[in-house]
């Protein structure tokens, strides 16, 4: 069964490809931010070096930390990695395509987040608790919004499975769709919140009043921290890939495509990923962080946009039928 083997290989290749490329995405963003602030900034490969350094270091554990605190980083990494591998990036029609469902994706990410929130409270420090509670507040708003976005797309494409959605969209003629524009905005807001980026959270600060994500991982060190950092890189790549897959799938190679199609697929994916990383850097430099209390309004906006997207999609379908 060469087809099965081929798809297995392709799926495996994609998993490791995503893992390999994820820190570089973060690296590019950091570099862009630094350049825009007129600093030279670290090389874009610095995140790899950081990860290596952390893996080699001893990890310090709080005396009252339980087994859960120790095992959580691996589980978080695993969940995130699986989720990232499910999103079609280079090509559609991979082995696990049957599982590449938007709802499953949201569930995987949600599980990783729940583990992190629990682990943060395990050490019993105040910061962990604050971080968890804020993270859950954000999640409670971001998750419905992301589900609504998924439903909008599913409503248009007739399926929630990402590869099929991507293929459907590639086949569509280019047209203006307000509902997609709204869903896009909503998903970008959700992605910013989920990845603890500005304006919801600042990944580069350890200020007590404002941290969310950093507060949760404050107690981690050494290889545990490396796992969590890697999961963070993966999550960012995952969200960018998801946005690319849903809104800009052009260039993606079909599974049985020629070598040329695959080359185009890889090239266009890398280009889009790079552009997104640069755009994120520019965005983060040009906007200020919000007060935590305003975050709920910001995410409420995402929810509203996503809901409107569904309503408008519904309307145009009903009207045109």
């Amino acid at each position, binding site marked *: 069964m060469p087809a099965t083997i081929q798809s297995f290989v392709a799926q495996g290749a994609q998993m490791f490809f995503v893992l390999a490329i994820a820190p570089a995405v973060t690296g590019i963003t950091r570099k862009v931010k630094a350049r825009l602030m007129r600093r030279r900034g670290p090389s874009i490969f610095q995140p790899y070096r950081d990860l290596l350094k952390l893996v080699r270091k001893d990890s310090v554990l709080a005396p009252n930390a339980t087994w859960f605190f120790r095992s959580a980083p691996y589980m978080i990494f695993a969940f995130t990695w699986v989720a990232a591998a499910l999103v079609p990036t280079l090509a559609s029609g991979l082995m696990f395509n049957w599982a590449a469902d938007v709802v499953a994706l949201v569930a995987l990410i949600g599980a990783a987040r729940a583990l992190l929130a629990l682990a943060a409270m395990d050490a019993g420090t105040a910061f962990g608790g604050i971080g968890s509670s804020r993270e859950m507040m954000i999640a409670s708003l971001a998750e419905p919004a992301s589900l609504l976005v998924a439903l909008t797309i599913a409503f248009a494409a007739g399926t929630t499975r990402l590869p099929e959605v991507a293929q459907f969209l590639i086949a569509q003629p280019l047209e*203006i769709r307000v509902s997609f524009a709204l869903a896009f905005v909503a998903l970008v807001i959700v992605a910013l919140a989920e990845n603890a980026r500005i304006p919801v959270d600042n990944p580069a600060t350890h200020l007590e009043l404002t941290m969310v994500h950093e507060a949760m991982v404050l107690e981690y060190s050494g290889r545990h921290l490396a796992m969590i950092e890697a999961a963070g890189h993966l999550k960012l790549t995952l969200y960018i890939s998801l946005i690319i897959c849903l809104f800009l799938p052009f260039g993606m190679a079909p599974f049985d495509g020629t070598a040329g199609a695959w080359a185009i697929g890889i090239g266009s994916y890398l280009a889009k990923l790079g552009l997104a990383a640069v755009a994120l850097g520019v965005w983060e430099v040009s906007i200020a962080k919000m007060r935590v209390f305003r975050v709920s309004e910001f995410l409420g906006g995402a929810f509203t946009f996503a809901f409107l997207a569904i309503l408008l999609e519904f309307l145009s379908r009903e009207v045109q039928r």
Partner: protein
Amino acid sequence: MTNAYDVAHFLAGMMLVCSFTLLYQDRILAVLNTFAVQAIMLSLAVAWQGYVRNAPDLFITAAMAFGLKGIIIPVALNRMVEKLGIKRGVDQVVNVGVAMFLGLGLTSLALLLVLKVTPGAASFTREGLALALAIILLGLLQMILRRNAVTQIVGFMSIENGLILAATGARGMPLVVEVSVAFSVLIALFVFAVFLFRIRERFDSVDVESLDKVRAARAHR
């Protein structure tokens, strides 16, 4: 035909998004700018209808919407806000989340209602009416939820935007009616302006809350 529909859908949809932005915004100047964007979207939508249907009289309506509501009124209100030194923030009666939920509920209601009663009408019409009703209801919601007189005016004018969208959606409404609508909006705006100055003169603020005190003082007369 599909393209014609798409553009109309896009413009009307953007008007609806503007309505939500109006509900969301809490700064007066941002509210005025959003309103201007909505009016410009309206004029584009009307002009598009005029072009697609080959109805040149709609261009007059579009031009009026653009000039009057897209430029003159926002600029005038801007001046007024500056001249009166109105505080820039706007108090809401309920928080943004609740307002958004109410807005989404009203929008769903409007869409379902119009789609249900107009199965036979043309797609442009159903679309226009459904979104127009949503915009009207959101404008009413804004008038209810805002305390500030200027934001209430903007709410009223976004209702008028919805009305004109509805009128354009229903094909072949006589021009007379549209002109008169625009005219009456002008009068209404004049009325508002007169009141704003008077309220300001009496209470030193355009917060309608100060009117509530008068009301409370005489609740049982």
